[in-house]
C-alpha cells in the first residue's frame, strides 16, 4: 500500500474504531450495574461455601476428631467423663453421649476455613454456616466458645470426674494389691512387684486431664481418648479392657 493511501486509511480506521468504542460504552451506560450495594444487598453464598464454623453442642460427643483434623490447631476441646449415674442423652444420630464437653473453643483468628474438621465429625455437629462478617477490634473476641455448660457446672463436672477417676484408680490399686498379696501368699518366696503397680495410679489420673492439650507429644493420648469416646469403635481392639491401663503398658 502506498503511504498516502495508508495515511487516509489510518484516519478512516481511527474514526470508525472510535465510533465502535463509543457504541460499546453507550450500551454499557444503560446496562444494569453488576455491582451491588453490599450491606443492603447481598450476593447469595455458594451452597458449599466455607465461612464461619458452627458447633451444635446438642450433638457433640466430645470425640476431639475435629481438633485433630485441624491443620492450624484452632479448635480446643476439653472433656470430663460423666458418672455412670448420669444420663447425657443421645445425639440426633442416635449415639450415646458419654463425656461432658467442658471446653469447646474455636479461634477464628487462626482458622483457615479449610473445612477439614467437618467430614470427620461422627455426629455431623460441626459445620460451615454462611456467616462471614465477624471482624472484631480485639483478637481475643475471635475465640468463640460453644459449650452449653456454665463455668460453675464445668468446675463441678471436672471435679466429679477427677474424683471418680481417683476412686476407680484406688479401687483398682487395692484390687491389684490384693491380687498381688494373694499371689505373694501363694508363691510365698516371691517379692511383691510393687514399683510397677505404684506408678499406675498417677499416670491414669494425668491421662484424664490431658485429653485436649495441644502439644503434639500428647497426640497418642488423644487418639486413645477418642477411640474410647467413639462408641462404634469401642469393642474392636481392647474389648472390655480399661484404656488407661492399656496406655501404661
Amino acid at each position: 500500500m502506498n503511504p498516502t493511501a495508508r495515511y487516509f486509511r489510518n484516519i478512516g480506521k481511527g474514526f470508525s474504531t472510535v465510533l465502535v468504542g463509543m457504541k460499546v460504552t453507550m450500551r454499557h451506560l444503560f446496562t444494569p450495574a453488576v455491582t451491588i450495594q453490599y450491606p443492603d444487598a447481598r450476593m447469595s453464598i455458594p451452597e458449599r461455601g466455607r465461612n464461619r464454623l458452627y458447633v451444635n453442642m446438642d450433638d457433640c460427643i466430645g470425640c476431639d476428631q475435629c481438633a485433630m483434623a485441624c491443620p492450624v490447631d484452632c479448635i480446643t476441646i476439653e472433656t470430663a467423663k460423666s458418672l455412670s449415674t448420669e444420663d447425657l442423652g443421645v445425639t440426633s444420630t442416635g449415639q450415646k453421649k458419654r463425656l461432658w464437653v467442658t471446653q469447646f473453643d474455636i479461634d477464628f483468628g487462626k482458622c483457615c476455613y479449610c473445612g477439614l474438621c467437618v467430614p470427620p465429625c461422627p455426629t455431623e455437629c460441626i459445620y460451615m454456616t454462611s456467616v462471614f462478617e465477624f471482624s472484631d477490634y480485639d483478637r481475643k473476641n475471635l475465640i468463640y466458645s460453644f459449650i452449653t455448660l456454665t463455668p460453675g457446672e464445668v468446675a463441678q463436672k471436672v471435679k466429679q470426674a477427677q474424683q471418680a477417676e481417683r476412686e476407680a484408680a484406688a479401687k483398682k490399686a487395692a484390687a491389684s494389691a490384693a491380687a498381688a498379696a494373694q499371689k505373694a501368699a501363694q508363691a510365698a518366696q516371691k517379692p511383691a512387684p510393687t514399683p510397677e503397680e505404684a506408678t499406675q495410679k498417677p499416670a491414669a489420673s494425668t491421662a484424664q486431664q490431658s485429653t485436649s492439650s495441644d502439644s503434639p507429644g500428647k497426640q497418642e493420648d488423644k487418639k486413645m481418648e477418642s477411640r474410647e469416646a467413639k462408641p462404634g469403635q469401642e469393642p474392636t481392639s481392647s474389648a472390655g479392657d480399661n484404656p488407661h491401663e492399656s496406655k501404661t503398658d
Partner: protein
Amino acid sequence: MHNFITYYLGAGFLASLISSVLPIVFVLGYALVAMYLELKVSAHMQDRLGPMRTGKWHGWAQPLADVVKLLQKEDTIPTAADKLLYILAPLLVFMGSYAAYAAIPFSPAYIGADINLGIFYIIAVSAIVVLGILMAGWSSDNKWSLLGAMRTAAQLVSYEIPSSLAVLAVIMVAGSLNLNDVCAAQTGWFWNWFIFGKFPFLFITFVIYFIASLAETNRSPFDIPEAESELVAGYHTEYSGMRFAFFYLAEYANMFTVAAVAAVLFFGGWNSPFGTFMSGPIWGAFWLITKGMVLVFIQMWLRWTLPRFRVDQLMYLSWKILTPFALADLVAVGLWTVLR
C-alpha cells in the same frame, strides 16, 4: 436585544460587578453538576453504580461532600517550592479559564463583555492557562510536576493551531468575531446551524475543533499532562486543599468553555433548534447551557471510551492529521465563501 444588566442598572460599577460575578455563580453550580455527572457516567459505563450513599438519593450530595472535604484539607506547600509562583499558579489557571466566560453569549440578553473580538479574546485568554500550568509544574520542585507541565505546554501549543484554524473557518462564514453575531447568523431552524453549513466542510471543522478542544482541556484521551499511571498527577501533584480545588474547578470550567464555544460556533448558540419556538432571553440561556452540557457529556463519554495517547501519537495527530486537514478545510470554506 441588549444586555439586560446594563439595561436595568446602567453602565456603572454595580452593573460591571454583577456582569462579572454572574458567570462564576453559573460555573460553581455547573461544576457540581458536572462532577456528579462524571462520577455517574464513568460508573455506569463501567457497569458500576457510582456514589449511592451521600445524600440518600443516588449519592446526589457527593460533589458537595467532595468540595467540603477539599476546603477543609490542610494546605501544604513544599519547603523547596518557589512560594510566590506556587501560590500564584492555581489562581492564574483559574483566572485564565474564567476570563473566557466574559465573551460567551449565554443568552441574547446577556454577555459579559459584548466585544467585537469575542472569539479571538477567548483563544488569547485561554493561553494564559498554559503559563499557569508551567508555573505550577516548575515551582513545585517535583519531577512529576515538571514533566507534566512540559507535556502540557507542548500539547497546548500544538493543539491551539488546529483549533484556531477551525475557528477561523467558521469566522469566515459568519463574518464576525463577536460570538453574539455568530449566534445571530444561525437564527432559524436547526438546519441553519453552521455544523450543516457548507456541507461537509464545516462538519469536518467541528470534528477538528472538538478533538483539539479535548486536548486543550487536558481531558482523556489527551490527559498525558496528568497521566496518573505514569506522572502521579502531573503538574498538580504537590497541590492540596483549596489550591487543588482551583485546578479542579479550572478544568471543569475549561470543559464548559470549549463546549460553549463549540455550541456557539456550530450549534447555533442561544438559538432554539425550532425557529422561534421556545426562543427568547431565558430560553436562550437554557439552549446554550443544554447544548454545552451535551458536548460536556460527549467529552466524558470519550474519556471513558478511549485509552490515553502516547506523546508521539499525540504530536502525530496534531501536526500530521488535524493541522493539514484544518488548513485544507479552511481553503475549501474560504473558496466557497468567496465564490458564493
